[in-house]
């Protein structure tokens, strides 16, 4: 039997930082979800794809050594003169939304639903684990996978851009990296909190995933369109969608207005405000659902 009290006494529960348990929970859950082949495949394919895409772009489109045929193709795809890195990131944001939703549905929605199904909550809460530890641990897990999908590619693009550039651009392109990461962080917060909130409502991961997808359908397709077209007659409202808000941030932050359009009207006029409202609203809804529900789950469980 374990009788070595010295090691146990070395740790005083009262003095333990809250983040310790949260990190243990997050680490274990991340390892567990990484066992899912589909998640590994999705994240791996997208990351490698972004690397290959960036390498091609940054090799062939550099000023002075651009391949004319590749340039023509890219031009047809919407490439405009300006920062290649900003353009590559804008392109990334035009298609990554769907995959981010999918990854959130595969990872975030299972985190609490599984604990409810396995009746594992008493195992957490009969230990020196607070509600904050638990929520933080699960949120970190959801954030990890979304961050790998949404924040790692901009970093990789920046690294590849810097590596392939004939002159040193590491410092001058840092602001673009910062602007590329912000939409990712917004999407991580919005989709992660919504996925966790929905997860706390269900006892089966599959139910939580479908509920999440249903909620996003309503919140992304129906609600913003209704607000924009039928209530306020203002298309800026489209930006409050939980998927579009991050995309809108990307467009606003990564545009090169002076080179593209001398009459660029500025961020506020293009719906930045609505994107900010949308992001705040959905994140608050997700965490609100999560915290209110998990307390009830604890009692019932």
């Amino acid at each position: 039997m374990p009788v070595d009290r010295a090691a146990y006494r070395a740790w005083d529960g009262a003095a333990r930082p809250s983040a310790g348990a949260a990190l243990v929970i997050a680490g274990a859950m991340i390892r567990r979800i990484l066992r899912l082949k589909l998640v590994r495949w999705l994240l791996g394919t997208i990351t490698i794809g972004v690397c290959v895409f960036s390498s091609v772009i940054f090799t062939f489109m550099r000023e002075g050594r651009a391949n004319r045929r590749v340039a023509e193709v890219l031009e047809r795809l919407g490439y405009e003169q300006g920062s290649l890195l900003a353009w590559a990131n804008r392109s990334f944001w035009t298609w990554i939304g769907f995959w981010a939703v999918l990854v959130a549905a595969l990872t975030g929605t299972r985190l609490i639903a599984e604990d409810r199904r396995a009746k594992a909550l008493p195992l957490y809460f009969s230990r020196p684990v607070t509600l904050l530890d638990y929520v933080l641990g699960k949120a970190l897990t959801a954030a990890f996978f979304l961050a790998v999908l949404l924040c790692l590619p901009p970093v990789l693009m920046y690294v590849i851009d810097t590596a392939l550039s004939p002159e040193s651009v590491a410092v001058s392109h840092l602001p673009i990296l910062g602007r590329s990461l912000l939409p990712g962080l917004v999407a991580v917060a919005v989709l992660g909190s919504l996925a966790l909130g929905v997860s706390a409502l269900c006892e089966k991961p599959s139910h939580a995933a479908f509920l999440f997808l249903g909620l996003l359908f309503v919140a992304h397709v129906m609600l913003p369109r209704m607000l924009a077209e039928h209530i306020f007659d203002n298309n800026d409202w489209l930006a409050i969608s939980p998927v579009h808000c991050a995309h809108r941030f990307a467009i606003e932050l990564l545009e090169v207005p002076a080179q593209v359009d001398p009459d660029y009207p500025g961020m506020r006029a293009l719906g930045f405000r609505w994107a900010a409202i949308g992001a705040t609203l959905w994140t608050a809804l997700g965490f609100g659902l999560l915290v209110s529900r998990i307390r009830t789950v604890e009692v019932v469980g």
Partner: protein
Amino acid sequence: MIARFRHVAKWYGAVIGLVDADVEIGPGVTGLLGPNGAGKSTFLKLLTGQLRPSQGEVRLLGANPYTTAAVHGRIGFAPEPDAFYEDWTGRAFVTFLVRLHGFGRAEAARRADEALDAVGLSDVAGRKIRTYSKGMRQRVKIAQALAHDPEVLVLDEPLTGMDPLWRRRLMDLLKKLGARGVTVIVSSHILHEVEAMTDTFILLFQGRVRASGSRGEIRAFLSDVPHRIRVGTPRPKDLARALLDLPGTLAVRLDDEGVSVETTAPDTLFDTLPALVLDRELPVTELREADTDLDAIFGYLVG
């Protein structure tokens, strides 16, 4: 006192879980007894701070377990339902839960191995939990509760589904822990299981604590219920005649080997009996209280 319930009530909406529980729990093994639905799990969840009392106060190790997460570092809890990540191995599961107590990876793994060894699962610790039998699952739950060396061990129906051999071994293990100073609180609806582990009980029925204390204390507390005393003798008729004259005697039943007396004054009977048998030269082969076993007490308490 290790734990104290002061007029605690818990209800879930209109459903009553526990009513006016007022008990104290000391060191050693305490059995929490009651039929299914008596409120045992609610009692244990209140004790381990997973539920907030609707009324009253719970103290465990001097603190409120609901609001003081640090107290949880000193308790080990095995819930009744299977609470597992089925795709984890027994070792990974226990190690993870031990790490939540603040232990490093290596120390947690060492403790997990020790605890799994203590419950006889070292051979299958690397197997996924979904391949475990019901008894093995019970033992994993006990291992995770033991592994961090808790001062208070709370086990909700731990012996359910276990084979007789391991049932016996775990009873011995819990008794040893109790003797070492660990406070062990075991719930069960099977009386003889608990009776084999301890002499201290809390009896729950329909959400109420009907009695608490040792068997003798609880039986003595039931003063309005006649005591049954068995006296063995080869001359039952003579003994019955003598006993009928004693104050408090309500009934005497005879058989070939002795008599069973129902009395409201057992102390008088025990005081008088030696002189009485000597005076009448009655041989006595057996003398015992016939209704101090837990079954009988429980029967009296719940009607």
